[in-house]
């Protein structure tokens, strides 16, 4: 399943809920303010580092760029994708769950 998270982890608990309920092996795509979770040096970094072994993490490139998060500042294992790859992820998974 593809999970999309569009909230900052410093604002809402959407990411926590997603991580609690996503089955191992899920694809998790961070979009909009959700991309803040992908950066190193934050309070949620450790949480993402642990979750990276269970799930595949993606972050939407244009949203990273819009927020000034350079790829060099991303947590290891987070893959940067564009809108086209977002579509591929949605097509490649049987379901898409938006954690709003």
């Amino acid at each position, binding site marked *: 399943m593809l999970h999309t998270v569009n909230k900052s982890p410093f604002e809402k608990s959407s990411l926590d809920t997603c991580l609690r309920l996503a089955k191992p092996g899920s694809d998790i795509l961070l979009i909009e303010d959700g991309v803040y979770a992908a950066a190193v040096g934050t309070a949620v970094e450790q949480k993402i580092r642990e979750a990276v072994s269970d799930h595949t993490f993606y972050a939407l490139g244009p949203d990273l760029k819009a927020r000034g998060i350079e790829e060099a500042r991303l947590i290891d294992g987070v893959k940067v994708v564009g*809108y*086209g790859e977002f579509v591929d992820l*949605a097509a490649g998974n049987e379901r898409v769950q938006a954690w709003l």
Partner: protein
Amino acid sequence: MKFGILVNEGPYQHQAADTAYHFTKAALERGHEVVRVFFYHDGVNNGTRLTTPPQDERNIVNRWSELAKQYDLDMVVCVAAAQRRGIVDEEEKKRQGKDADNLAEGFNISGLGQLIDAGIKADRLVEFGD
């Protein structure tokens, strides 16, 4: 593959309206079919032709209209959500006795059944909201 798109947020209010557009465009450019874009809740505000953003800024409403024209997209605005927010087409204008209508080109006003129908017809229903 067939995609259904659900848009729950309005333009210039939440990025969801932008993300939904970019996703829909990318899906179409990749050769997928988009069976319907359904605008619900504040998402119905994507369908008013009276928005006039500055000329050097993206025009979210026109952008949808152009995409619909290019790909013959079915864009449906929820009637109950539209009535609450003053989104009116010619027919609703007459039916409700209003002095104007404002639905943008390429949009249609219809019922929530169109969302269920999109969910049934599409292989994937992708939601964009807050």
